[in-house]
């Protein structure tokens, strides 16, 4: 079968375009496979899934608070309505020092009943020295895992723990009655490859 020259050139043009497309896709695919990435794996350096240290409740005056630990869940709650600014927290003592140099992320799972309860975590690394490492709200009532990069926040090497506060602060609007925030799986982790 003989193809007329004009049509043949049209086919040639389409063939060149298709070839360019295939070569481009092959190149991207090749780079995608050739560039070496370390698959990120979560590596746990230390964990206290049972909140086994000494934990006590601390909170704002005028708003009774409580903590309870059951089946690996730390519950931090208030009795009555929590007005903006109210802080209820569990204070953990006797915790081991944190090898932040190797495991930079302080991780904890949280479940908050309101977007107006901000999760609040404070790390005291020496008497009179403390840094708030998380103050964050969540807009749903699902479990979330917080990964706070302690290196990003200025820590390095082995960090002694004078005490650790895990709790919440009411923000913007009153929350109640009897709000409770749950925490699980306190740990220090790294992402291998990162």
């Amino acid at each position, binding site marked *: 079968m003989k193809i007329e020259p*004009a049509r043949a*050139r*049209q086919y040639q*043009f389409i063939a060149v375009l298709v070839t*360019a497309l295939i070569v*481009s896709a092959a*190149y*991207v*695919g090749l*780079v*995608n496979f050739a*560039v070496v*990435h*370390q*698959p*990120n794996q979560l590596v746990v350096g230390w964990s206290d899934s049972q909140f086994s240290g000494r934990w006590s409740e601390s909170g704002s005056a005028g708003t009774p608070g409580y903590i309870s630990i059951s089946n690996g869940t730390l519950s931090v709650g208030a009795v009555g309505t929590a007005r903006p600014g109210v802080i209820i927290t569990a204070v953990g003592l006797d915790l081991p020092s944190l090898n932040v140099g190797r495991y930079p992320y302080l991780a904890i799972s949280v479940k908050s009943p309101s*977007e*107006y309860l*901000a999760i609040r975590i404070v790390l005291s690394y020496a008497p009179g020295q403390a840094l*708030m*490492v*998380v*103050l*964050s*709200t*969540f*807009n*749903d009532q*699902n479990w*979330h*895992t*917080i*990964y*706070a*990069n302690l290196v*990003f*926040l200025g820590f390095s090497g082995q960090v002694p723990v004078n005490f650790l506060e895990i709790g919440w602060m009411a*923000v*913007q*609007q009153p929350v109640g009655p009897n709000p409770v925030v749950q925490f699980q799986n306190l740990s220090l982790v790294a*992402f291998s*490859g*990162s």
Partner: protein
Amino acid sequence: MPTPADIDQSVATVPPEPIWLRVLAPALRSQARRVWFWLAVGLAIRVALLPLFASVDLLSNAFVTTVLVNQHQLIVTNDPPPIFYIEGALDWLFRPFISSQIGTYFSLGPSFTPSSAPESLAAQTPGINLFVSILKLPFLAADVVIAFVLPRFFGNPRTAYIALLLWWFNPISIYVSYMVGQFDVVATAFLVLAFYYLRSNRDLWCLAAFGLAMFFELYAVVLIPFLLIYWLRTTPFSRKTLQRWGGTFLTTGLAALGLLLILHFQALAYTPANLALSSVGVNGNFGSIVYSRGLTSQPFLAIAFTFLGYSAQLPIDTGLSDVILIVVVAYGVLLILFSRTPGVTWNDMAGVTLASFLVFYALSGFLVQWVLWSMPFLVLLLAKNLRALMLPYVILIIGYFMYTWYFRTVLFGALLQVSYPGASGADPIALMDSAGLPGLMVVNAGRSLFSAACLWFAYLAVRDSIGKVHRAASSA
């Protein structure tokens, strides 16, 4: 003398132009071979960059896109949402090829401090090179549209050819779209189309393209006053003028309405904001408040305030906390100039558009991707007299890239993080400092030269309009 039948016969026997000629601007068709050669070279450069580079911003947009596809929820950011639907469609289409590990970090389950941590982790995940390539495909499409439309502004083959090359090998547009991975080229392509239709008096197409430009990025709104003046000054006031004005308001309203409808009907997703961070690190929601770079914001207004907030300011010594925003002054001067220009032409409109962008860059801080908006219009100016304008163009390009160094690792070493994690620490100012050079002063000097080049081109862009005003004033 041929009869009508003979003419019909002869027309019927003329073979239609092949497609590879028809897609080119008429002025380029006589040089199709070399045009296609350079198009292929430019395409190869772009394809080569696709998988190798990505900024944190592109990876943030990947986060928004992935959540949109997986959870059908939109994370509200400073970027108008339409681009995420295009990116989402591509994500969905290519999902079988995209590594599921990447999605581990681009989901709302975990909350990271800093909030950019998931992007950093995803950047080091196998499969990320393909994913960022897919996300850049709309930029490539828009880029190609500009390359094919820009030469159509010229009837002279040589000028059209130069315009094509100036766009297709423009280092700023290549850097912004394929290395930083910003989507500004999409709205810019619609703006170029709008000007193309404006020039050929196809009002409906012009307004549609203008509306789409505004839909994808709000910056095109600043050109609306110029467009209204253009409609008013190019034809005697008539019903058609009113129709054009009405069409302009309608298009602007539809673009705004489209964005509002998305926000109203689209289920939104919220990212937790960590207020324990330093100011600029706070992004997301704290309670019901949206934070953007440490500031509470309305997502779209935040762009406008960023735009103005970067402007150089003159304090007024009145006891009031009063300032003059230099950018607003410059914009006002251009608006007055354009409204006073007798015999306004399409060239004046293109000139005042280019000048508006350039004075903003010259007199303000700006995000590096914003310079792309002006590049097609600068090409229109340069192509006509490249030889005389080459030096300030080179200064502008060099000064621009020195300005990017203000953003330190973010727009330097970190762009390579998807290909080479070890490169992310490179900071050009620190490198200069360590070499004994005053890094910041060098960058400031480069930025100043960039501003000078911008102001020079802004003057050239409106020189004809100024001349007309001057002549009119002299003859009055």
